[in-house]
């Protein structure tokens, strides 16, 4: 027996092993800041993922073009496609974490949940901007996770506050239509709790991921139950279908409020005029009338360095939200640089930066984002910033901001968040929190 043919037999495995055995060293000739961007430009939710990813990338590009990066260090944004799929998301994480990743924006509840336990081990913070696990707002329990500017729970409280201020909430019937996955179910504990304390009746209408475009049964039930208000936690193709169905059963659309993932331009353009009156929460400004957005147009889009299909897409709801995500990260990088005194920071530095973020009105103006959003101030204990949301309304062709910022009912929500955080940690005996003084 000779060995040659064995080599052939093992060829595949050997080549693969050799190819991946050595990780390529990251070139550190000049200081760089590496930011992985987990995107979903494909799959059933691509409609929301694409503008978000564009806004995210364009803002960092703009900083590179305009300011030469942050603190002299160039920003490198590497996209990794997850298709909103947890397994691919974890793969993206594994593939990029050793390149000096500063923070992860998982952009899906499933991926967020998978990354939260990994963050303290690999010392890379997870920044799930207004999504993921609401309980992660509790900084003592989740040192490595941030949810600025607010959580699903606080957002829900803002929406309920709006309802309360517009005709009262007591003894009303509130319908909650939601995507039947972790994301949609996330606010249910709070909703059930508040329905008791605030005295409204709750009706739940789950929409399966496979049934997103087939909601007539849910809306028939709505027609039967006649709730006074409808709240939606929807995403992707679920949103336009829901608004269409609501219009079909002649539900008063100005009493139908979506959360901030259920109010994008994509969603309502697919509905058009019949969607007039539908409202949605938002925490990032709409349109191009912000100096920062103008800078993006000037430095990135007009030079052809953006992936947006047309310049008109800049400034739409999800584009601006992606940009806002980048703004917070950029600000955290800047804070971290100032606190550590080095340009090329690490994930651990980034955590400190995120914790000490302070986007007040003055700073927002400096950034060219006056009136874009409410102020955000983080702390060791508060990884949420208890930000406010405003409501926007579809006028048949475009979104209009129709309310001022509505403060959340933080006093009610915070204890519940703490309870939830305790519960999350309770069955993990070796979970490491932090003490804030």
């Amino acid at each position, binding site marked *: 027996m000779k060995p040659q043919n064995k080599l052939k037999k093992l060829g595949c495995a050997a080549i693969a092993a050799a190819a991946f055995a050595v990780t390529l060293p990251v070139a550190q000739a000049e200081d760089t800041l590496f930011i992985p961007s987990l995107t979903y*430009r*494909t*799959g*059933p939710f*691509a*409609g929301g*993922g*694409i503008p978000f990813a564009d806004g995210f990338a364009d803002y960092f590009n703009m900083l590179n073009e305009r300011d030469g990066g942050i603190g002299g260090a160039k920003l490198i944004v590497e996209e990794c496609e997850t298709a909103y799929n947890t397994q691919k998301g974890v793969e993206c994480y594994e593939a990029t974490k050793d390149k000096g990743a500063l923070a992860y924006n998982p952009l899906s509840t499933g991926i967020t949940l998978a990354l939260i336990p990994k963050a303290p081990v690999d010392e890379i913070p997870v920044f799930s901007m207004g999504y993921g696990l609401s309980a992660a707002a509790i900084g003592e329990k989740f040192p490595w996770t941030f949810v600025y500017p607010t959580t699903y729970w606080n957002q829900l409280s803002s929406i309920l506050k709006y309802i309360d201020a517009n005709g009262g909430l007591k003894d009303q019937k509130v319908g909650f239509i939601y995507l*039947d996955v972790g994301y949609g179910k996330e606010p249910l504990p709070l909703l059930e709790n508040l329905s008791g304390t605030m005295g409204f009746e709750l009706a*739940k*209408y*789950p*929409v*399966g*991921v*496979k*049934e*997103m*475009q*087939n*909601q*007539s*049964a*849910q809306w*028939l*039930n709505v*027609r*039967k139950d006649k709730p006074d208000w409808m709240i939606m936690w929807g995403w*992707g*193709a679920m949103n*336009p*279908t829901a608004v*269409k169905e609501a219009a*079909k*059963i*002649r539900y008063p659309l100005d009493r139908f409020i979506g959360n901030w993932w259920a109010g994008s331009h*994509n969603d309502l*353009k*697919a*509905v*058009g005029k*019949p969607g007039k009156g539908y409202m949605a929460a938002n925490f990032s400004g709409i349109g191009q009338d912000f100096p920062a957005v103008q800078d993006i147009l000037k430095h990135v889009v007009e030079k052809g360095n953006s992936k947006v*299909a047309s310049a008109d897409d800049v400034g739409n709801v999800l584009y601006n939200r992606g940009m806002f995500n980048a703004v917070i990260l950029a600000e955290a990088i800047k804070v971290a640089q100032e606190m550590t005194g080095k340009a090329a920071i690490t994930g651990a530095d980034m955590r400190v930066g995120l914790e000490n973020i302070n986007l007040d009105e003055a700073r927002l103006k400096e950034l060219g984002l006056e009136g874009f959003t409410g102020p955000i101030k983080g702390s060791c204990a508060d990884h949420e910033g208890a930000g406010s949301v405003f409501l926007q309304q579809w006028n048949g062709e475009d979104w209009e901001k129709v309310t001022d910022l509505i403060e959340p009912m933080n006093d009610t929500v915070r204890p519940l968040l703490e309870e939830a955080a305790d519960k999350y940690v309770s069955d993990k005996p070796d979970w490491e929190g932090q003490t804030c003084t």
Partner: protein
Amino acid sequence: METFVAGLHAFLVAPFLDMVSLPDFLLQVIWEGFVSGILYALIALGFVLIYKASAVFNFAQGIMVVFAALVLVSLFDLGVPAWLALIITIAVMGLLALSVERLVLRKLVNQHEAILLMATIGLTLVLKGAGQLVFGGEPKSMITEELGFSTGSSDWEVFDGIVIFQHIDIAAAVIAIIMVAVLGVFFSKTRIGRALRAVADDHQAALSVGISLNQIWAIVWFASGIVALVTGIMWGARSDVSFALEIIALKALAVLILGGFTSVPGAIVGGLIVGIGEKLFEVYWGPMFGGGVEAWFAYVLALIFLLFRPQGMFGERHIERV
């Protein structure tokens, strides 16, 4: 014991009382079920056409629906007039049929049905990738009005209430009926149609009387492509055109179980049973289980049905021989 009786009452009696107490609402539920049933039936019809003529279980039918609708909408977005976009889309579906026949089916003649199924799943991946590559992943809205369909609705006042009919739904029903009628005439009156049936009955016999199998295959795939386009327009008008639609097409598989793989009337009746059945079940029984039962109702119905009638609704009992 009491809870058991109460549960039994809630399951077996209360839903029917509900139905009777709001008859106009019941009618609305049945109408909604009827419309989605029609759409399931149309997808199933595409399956049946291909299976009848080539014994290929075309898993790609669902993605063909999305693909056709995407081509149409994207052409319109590029500034092509609606009527021209429609014609070009039909041509694209024809081209697709030809290439599927040339590149895939011709090479897989006489293979086991599982292999052919797999090939169409491969085709699904190709179409999905190509569709997103060319047209992008964003959902698009169907050009309903531009194609001449009304987006309004009409009310029917009955039983002290109203039943709302969307015009587009009525159009879907009418078009489905016309298509089934046209297919019926096509199968029984035209030369190609008769050839198709000959192929369905016996491939070799059909070959021996000089019918080109390749031609037939291309034709049935084209026909299913057109059925897919119609389905895509109708469903797209109800929600939007996106790849999320593909998963709904899987329901047509349950329809096929009820109706049988080769029966056109079976596809229609099966589609309506699934459509109306799942709406009734979701609306009247769903809340008992926390809702969302629509996701599995059709399949479980098909499974139970098969246990009692393995040959399907219109199939004949098969005698096994050794």
